[in-house]
């Protein structure tokens, strides 16, 4: 274990402790009547329990790494709210990654792959393998009667489902540091982008059966970025380093719009998204990001007594989802019709003898149907059945149980995701809250199964881990 790094990074801890001292007795800190700051200091540690990462990379030895992650987070959220019409929000992060320093099985690697000059639009002040300082979100809201606008670097989330991104496609993900294992799913890994978002509430058409009609749209004028995966040598490296030059999409445009509302007890949206693929595709010697159009729908409904169950359905259809052409030869992109859909059942049920807190029960079935699957593959490598071939359909079940106890000071969590082709993820967790400030949580991630193709859940079994977090929030 390399210890001297603690000395060279002392400033981060001194700053954090100073901040802690100021905020010990406070929740949100009001700097002025209109400006407040909240945030947290967190230490996260993930102990690797799976096999060695099979991805070719600059590994020090043939042994598996002991740690997947050791990282300190100091995140502040600044809110300027001078009146009911206008608001400015900013999220500033200071991150310090100690994973390689603490694990002899790992070479030093770039823990923050986005910290390169090419990503200056991300408001990152650093270009360091282990330290990151960035303003990850910065936007202004304006509420002008029925019109609401948000302009700036933001996350735009459409969709209501768990453990699946069907309509939630707008922002790319930062999978480099913890894949999708974070308990908050995507909030901490969704990459904010510069965009304009607008929603208009349509009034005057409300009737006894039609209500809450709105039009919403977004425009990203050119801040297009792909999903980021772990850098070479990272515990979460997913693909070998590519030497192919990149034809990125920066300065190209992404946009989308939706119509939402309620008819009786059924609420829903109709969506159109014009996006660029978050994953790069190798073609003609370049890594490129094809354009995709998505047509989507969401519907939700609540069944009354005695069922007391909510139903949510979400689907997207694309006629030009990119894959690789399975025919031999140089890698080529092939576009295919793809339908993704899911239905979620949700219920709050009192299962304890003394009915104080309800258990949240969510069960979801999702499927993907791909036309012409026999002509497709998921990687540029030659087609190998069981490795990169594409199935006509994929079926996944997900179950999430969450139970609060002791006045929400304790939360028990259990998630299981099952790919019917033969893979599963099991994720139990416990969270303890102490007072207003301290939160301790620990989770296990156990992925396994016979379905190990690179695009499927079972492929990630090498990443299994137990991780815990200590958080001080203010």
């Amino acid at each position, binding site marked *: 274990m390399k210890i001297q790094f603690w000395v060279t990074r002392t400033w981060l801890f001194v700053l954090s402790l100073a901040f802690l001292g100021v905020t010990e007795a406070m*929740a*949100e800190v009001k700097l002025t009547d209109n400006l407040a700051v*909240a945030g*947290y200091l967190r230490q996260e540690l993930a102990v690797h329990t799976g096999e060695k990462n099979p991805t070719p990379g600059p590994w020090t030895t043939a042994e598996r790494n002991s740690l997947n992650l050791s990282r300190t987070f100091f995140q502040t*959220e600044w809110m300027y709210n001078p009146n*009911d019409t206008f608001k400015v929000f900013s999220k500033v992060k200071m991150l310090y990654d100690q994973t390689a320093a603490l694990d002899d099985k790992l070479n030093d690697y770039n823990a923050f792959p986005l910290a390169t000059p090419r990503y200056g639009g991300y408001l990152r002040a650093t270009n360091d393998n282990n330290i990151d300082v960035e303003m990850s979100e910065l936007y202004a809201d304006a509420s002008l009667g*029925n019109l*609401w606008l948000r302009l700036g670097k933001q*996350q735009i*989330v459409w*969709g*209501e489902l768990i453990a699946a991104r069907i309509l*939630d496609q707008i922002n790319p993900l930062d999978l480099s540091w913890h894949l999708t294992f974070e308990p*908050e*799913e*995507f*909030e901490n890994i*969704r990459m904010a982008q510069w965009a304009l978002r607008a*929603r208009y*509430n349509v009034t*005057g*058409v*409300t*009737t*006894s059966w039609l*209500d*809450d009609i*709105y039009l919403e749209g977004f425009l990203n004028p050119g801040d297009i970025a792909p999903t980021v995966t772990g850098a070479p040598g990272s515990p979460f490296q997913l693909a070998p380093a590519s030497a192919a030059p990149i034809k990125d999409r920066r300065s190209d445009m992404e946009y989308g719009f939706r119509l*939402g509302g309620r008819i009786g*007890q059924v*609420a829903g949206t109709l969506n159109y998204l014009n996006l660029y693929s978050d994953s790069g595709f190798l073609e003609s010697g370049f890594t490129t990001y094809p354009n995709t159009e998505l047509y989507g729908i969401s519907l*939700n*409904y*609540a069944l*009354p*007594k*005695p069922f*007391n*169950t*909510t139903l*949510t359905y979400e689907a997207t259809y694309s006629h030009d989802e990119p894959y690789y052409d399975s025919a031999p030869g140089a890698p080529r992109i092939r576009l295919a019709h793809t339908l993704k859909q899911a239905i979620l059942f*949700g*219920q*709050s*049920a*009192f299962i304890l003898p003394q*009915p*104080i*807190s*309800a258990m949240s029960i969510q069960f979801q079935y999702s499927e993907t149907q791909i036309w012409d699957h026999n002509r497709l593959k998921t990687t540029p490598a030659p087609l190998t059945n069981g490795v990169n071939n594409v199935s006509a359909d994929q079926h996944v079940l997900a179950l999430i149980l969450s139970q609060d106890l002791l*006045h*929400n*000071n304790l939360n028990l969590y259990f998630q299981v995701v099952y790919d019917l082709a033969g893979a599963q993820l099991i994720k139990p967790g416990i969270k303890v*809250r102490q*007072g*207003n*400030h301290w*939160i301790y949580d620990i989770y296990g991630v156990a992925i396994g199964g016979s379905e190990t193709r690179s695009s499927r859940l079972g492929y990630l079994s090498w990443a299994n881990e137990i991780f815990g977090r200590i958080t001080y*929030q*203010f």
Partner: protein
Amino acid sequence: MDNHKIRDLIMVLFAFLFALLSPRALLGANIPSIADVVEGKASPPTIEDLTGGKVKNNGLVDKNNVELVKNYLTASMYESVKRGMVLKMGTQLPPDQLNPKVFRDITEKNRGKAIIDKNGVVYYEKMGTLWPGGRPFPVVKSGVEAMANSTFGKPWDTYMIDPARLCYINSKGEIYKTVDQTFMYVKYTTRTMIPPLGAVPGSENVLVKRIAVAAEPREIKGLGQFTVRYYDPAKQYDTGFAYLPAFKRTIRISATTWQDNIAGSDAIYGDGDGFNEPYYDWNLKLIEKKFLLVPEPKMSVRLTDQKMNINKDFQFDVGKKYPRLGWVIWPVDVVEAIPNYKNVYGKRVLYFPCWPYSYSYSAIAAVDIYDRQMKLWKNFFFIYGGHEYLNGDRDKPQTSSVGALTVDLQSEHRTLMLYTQLLNTNKIGTDSLSLGKLIEMGR
């Protein structure tokens, strides 16, 4: 003196002695009837009247003398006093200082014109005609009428609380955590104070829309709900959505959410207003009318400052378990409510102050809550005392609530909710509350 006269004299002396030992017998004639009080023929009796002077009008009730006032306490309040709560006898206000004149006038104008269907929905003179506003049943004759008053007879068209602070208090009387929330309610029918009066065109089927959003701590900041309660909840059940800031998603929620606790507190969402769930599937029975000690309508000392910090001059008993509030005698209707379906509660006993002695926020002053085994579980009551004049208009007095206390008598944990209530505020209107607004307020 012959034996006759001696015997008569002894009987007179005996009767006089009996009267002296039984103050009620002598003073009974001075306690007005509830009917006389609600008709304005008499003022409510004081605690001195009711206890024969044993508890003074500026005195205290604690565990040492609680037996003297047991008949004027709710069952759960009696328990709380035995465990250390102290009641200060407070300041009465006359009825014309409790609610806006326009609301009182419309109540009188519409007196006798309310009809009620089998599900407890109120209409005006004939089924299907919406109730225009005012208290439907100034004199309650059944449990359903009392609940109908609470649901269809609110003197506010909007209200906002920003923030409400929930203080979680352990068995030692220590506040160990707090949660801040914002609440916004807008009525769409039975409107009397803010135009459009009566019903909002296009929304005649809606009774009220609500948004509740957590403001602190940071982990749950932005966690919120948007719900719609319809005019006839038996025909159209509640529509609800929640926003989960950790996932940046909105999800649909079901009607059982009313039974879940508010942010882990001792109160459930259905405890809002005293009884916030649809009541068509509850058995409601008017048990009795009686005089009861209820929170005073106007506090002399504020409980909190504008930032919801507890006023250090405000007295508490047993650590922070019980704020020492002022109490007055009002006539109340006592209603027993038992659910016809499986509910987290086995029974509620609700105490509705009789009109015109009624607060502006809720028609309910206090609730005894029983568990499924019918054991006394919780003591719930509103803290009133936020007396004010709307926009300074002396014809529009309002008695708002400044808090609520929910005591879990079985676990000795309690939640004290503190807030400043803006009743009939123009800060929110009929276009203010929507799913979009919930997302705007989210993180």
